[in-house]
């Protein structure tokens, strides 16, 4: 089941620069997308979400972009900070089914160096 893919297992960025994390999906029925951050031995922490009626959502340093035609979303973190070092998961949901399950990608490990 590869409905949500994060093709980069890891990303290294210098502090202050932009981090761009990418996610692709194959199921065109997905209409709600979320990004989670996960530290070791902790649960996923919700960061930001976007509905398919939008193409951009911003919250502080975090911006999510959605390109429905390409079935692609990205998370931009500007400026990146060492505390952002974690594994980032994108997740997708099909709200039209009435169901709530989130389908997760495999995650991208972000390392922000000072």
């Amino acid at each position, binding site marked *: 089941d590869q409905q949500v893919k994060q093709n980069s297992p890891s990303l290294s960025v210098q502090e202050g620069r932009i981090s761009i994390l990418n996610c692709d999906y194959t199921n065109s029925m997905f209409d709600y997308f979320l990004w989670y951050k996960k530290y070791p*031995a902790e649960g*996923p*922490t919700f960061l930001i979400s976007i509905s398919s009626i939008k193409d951009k959502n911003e919250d502080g340093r975090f911006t999510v972009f959605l390109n429905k035609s390409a079935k692609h979303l990205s998370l931009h973190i500007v400026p990146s900070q060492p505390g952002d070092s974690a594994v980032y998961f994108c997740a997708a949901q099909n709200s039209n089914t*009435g169901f*709530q399950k989130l389908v997760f990608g495999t995650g991208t490990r972000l390392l922000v160096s000072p």
Partner: protein
Amino acid sequence: EPEVTQTPSHQVTQMGQEVILRCVPISNHLYFYWYRQILGQKVEFLVSFYNNEISEKSEIFDDQFSVERPDGSNFTLKIRSTKLEDSAMYFCASSEGRHYEQYFGPGTRLTVT
């Protein structure tokens, strides 16, 4: 800030034993979930629960698994007759509504020996 809590943080059990994983969702949330993550793999959906009944379950959630909300605050996942392949991190989550962000607990690491 309200958060989802889970107990225990780590559970070791022998194959064939029953385990109960406990969760306290965020108090005003109405939807509750269990997910699991086998080491090195994706976070996978197991089940969602609303209004005292299962609203959705995955193919993983077979007769070995059950969920319950025994009182107004706890939400439990029971695994009967555990197998080695049940070893994983189990995450509880909750949300205000059906299509709202889901908030996750810190997880229970289940080790089946």
